[in-house]
């Protein structure tokens, strides 16, 4: 009996854990895994998310030049060749060129090649059955034209064959390099992270994000606590009214809430008019200056989180037995000492919860900023999540960089995980949750 019970306990424990594990897998690990996969690709609107083909484009030639491919090779890639081969002859026949003329070309010029259209056409003009019209001559010449430029090859092999056909004595490795670069589909890469690490914008956005999260969080917790404690000491009738009032930012739909803030802060809005009447500078507070834009962003998000904090803190406050508060008063504690020594220490767990939950949701939230300042003026209020969102899903140039966006999101996930661990340490989570209260 004794020996078997720990085993049974483990199994039972496992059974209890299963739903939690399934949910964790479905809602946490799966998105994270997908994000991680995307983060290591260069997927974008241009590459698509399925496979691609091999094309040498003018743009590619330019970027290859920038990357130092020798000019001769680039030139050759850009050139057209005229090769008299079987395929060319068939193309000419199909294009309706006079059969006799084609036969003559086959007989006299077979297997020769020309590097320019003028040389080839000059040669054609020497043939007896040449067409009289220049246009027909050009059609015949065109049938033998060979170029890799803007030709789509389905496989790498075909692209490499075409390249080696085009290039005489290409430099070592050049064909492989061009073929790789010409791929239009997505590939695996770690460039997203390298680019993020070196881009100067990255650090500005990181700075913005830290500034935004820290200030909004401080506002959330401080105002949430303040509201909870004041309503706690208020008579019940008043506290009910205030609770509902402070809940409004939370329960108003995001878009409506953002629109209200716009009315409030835009030109000819509420604040604008008041400032004007008072002789203060009146402008579009939402986008008009960096300081006012940040204030708006922090208040918009702050009030949503503050009401959330207030609900949690109010619940926790009501759970403190009233005798403890009586005892502290009888012990001589002033109202402030009661808050400082009795109430706040017992709010540690809800404060931890609000802080960690809000840090994570603020880190990953962009909707309110997107709908209000949209990261402006300039990109002064652009935070990481908004930038990731714009990079991956919503930007003006139209080239959505899924891979880079996913890489940015993955950075957020990593930061979130690290922060969670730090928070748990900081608030000595293990002490609070040391043992299950009910033993199996």
């Amino acid at each position, binding site marked *: 009996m004794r020996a078997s019970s720990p085993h049974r306990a483990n199994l039972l424990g496992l059974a209890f854990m299963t739903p939690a594990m399934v949910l964790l897998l479905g809602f946490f690990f799966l998105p994270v895994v997908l994000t991680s996969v995307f983060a290591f690709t260069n997927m974008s609107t241009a590459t698509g998310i399925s496979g691609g083909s091999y094309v040498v484009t003018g743009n590619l030639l330019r970027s290859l030049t920038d990357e130092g491919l020798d000019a001769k090779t680039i030139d050759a890639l850009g050139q057209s060749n005229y090769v008299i081969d079987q395929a060319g002859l068939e193309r000419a026949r199909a294009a309706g060129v006079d059969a006799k003329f084609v036969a003559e070309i086959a007989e006299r010029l077979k297997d020769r090649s020309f590097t320019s259209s003028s040389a080839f056409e000059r040669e054609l003009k020497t043939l007896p059955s040449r067409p009289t019209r220049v246009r027909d001559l050009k059609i015949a010449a065109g049938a033998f034209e060979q170029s890799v430029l803007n030709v789509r090859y389905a496989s790498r092999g075909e692209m490499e064959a075409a390249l080696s056909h085009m290039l005489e004595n290409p430099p070592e490795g050049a064909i492989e390099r061009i073929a790789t670069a010409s791929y239009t589909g997505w590939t695996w890469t770690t460039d997203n992270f390298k680019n993020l690490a070196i881009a100067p914008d990255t650090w500005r956005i990181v700075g913005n994000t830290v500034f935004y999260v820290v200030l909004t969080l401080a506002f959330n917790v401080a105002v949430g606590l303040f509201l909870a404690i004041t309503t706690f000491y208020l008579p019940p009738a008043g506290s009910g009214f205030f609770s509902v009032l402070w809940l409004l930012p939370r329960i108003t739909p995001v878009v409506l809430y953002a629109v209200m803030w716009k009315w409030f802060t835009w030109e000819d809005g509420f604040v604008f008019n008041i400032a004007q009447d008072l002789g203060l500078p009146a402008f579009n507070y939402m986008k008009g200056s960096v300081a006012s834009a940040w204030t708006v962003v922090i208040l918009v998000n702050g009030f949503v989180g503050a009401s959330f904090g207030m609900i949690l803190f109010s619940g926790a406050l009501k759970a403190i037995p009233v005798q403890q508060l*009586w005892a*502290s*008063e009888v012990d*001589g*504690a002033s109202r402030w*000492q009661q808050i400082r*020594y009795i109430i706040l220490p017992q709010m*540690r767990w809800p404060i931890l919860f609000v802080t960690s939950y809000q840090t994570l949701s603020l880190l990953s939230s962009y909707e309110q900023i997107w709908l209000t300042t949209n990261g402006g003026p300039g990109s002064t209020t652009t935070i990481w999540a908004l930038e990731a969102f714009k990079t991956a899903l919503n930007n003006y140039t139209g080239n959505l960089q899924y891979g880079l966006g996913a890489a940015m999101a993955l950075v957020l996930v990593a930061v979130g995980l690290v922060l969670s661990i730090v928070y748990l340490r900081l608030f000595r989570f293990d002490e609070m949750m040391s043992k299950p209260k009910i033993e199996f």
Partner: protein
Amino acid sequence: MQISIRNFTKTFDATTVIDDMNLTIRDGEMLALLGPSGCGKSTTLFTISGIHRMDKGQLMFGDRDVSGLPSQKRNVGVVFQNYALYPHMNVFENIAFPLTVRKDAKADIDREVRAIAALTHISELLERRPGQLSGGQQQRVALARALVRKPDVLLLDEPLANLDAKLRLEMRSEIRRIQLETGITAVLVTHDQVEAMSMCDRIAIMKKGEIVQIDTPADMYSNPRTSFVAGFLGNPPISFLSGIAMENAFSVAPIKLRVPLVPQEGIADGTQLKLGVRPEHFGPEGDIAVEGRIAFAETQGRENLYDVALADGSVLRSIQPAGRNWALGDTVRWHIDSKSVFVFTDDGQRL
């Protein structure tokens, strides 16, 4: 310090819980507030401590009127019904709390806390959290916290209610010892009469927000002023017989019982009366014979407890030393000790 409550009225919402109460607690005495659940004991205690405000009346500590003073300024120590220790502080911090908020010097706090911890026998528990203590240990921590700043008044709200029988016995004498040692004026709220009788100098019995009698335990027991008091004190409880006055005697005609009303003459014949007989005053010895049948018998070790059903259906309780045992159903002819009975009018007033 003497505490006097004058014309105290307390109303919650619309219900008046205490109506025009007067009570004086002498300097250095320990007074028990005894009464059934919901009679207003805690309310009275919380009013003395300042947690509740009086709707009407006056509260005096010595000759200082403290009615308007907040609890922070009254210098009272309270032990709450459920101890109300601060769960996030260890025992030392709990006890030190009244001194900490007063901003005493660290060294002083340390000395005072250790002294009071020694007095309450919890010196070795100072590092623990309340959650790691037994009920009795928590109770002593609460007591230490109430005593540490040398309050003028100690208020105890059913401090022993949550303890087991043995611990309760121990703590009873412990609290009394500390109260006597410190000479503090104390009020003990309880609904356990044994607790009240064994610990306190005087007992105030409350009923529905009123104090019905205030006396020493012995006087209260031997000289109850109402049938409620007589019924509340004593274990096993007193039993009552209904009858009428007839020729200067309490009489129950159907069983031919006649108990002379010696000191109280001149009661109109036919007046409805109640006779209270304590179990120790009914048994084989006595002067007025009553016949009945043993309807219930219980052995309590040293003593046996019997219910004797009389011919008219009423029941008298009796407690007898073990040794001579009667069995259920035995017919007995026992006696009432007529000098020790109490006679009450029908509405409960003692004659």
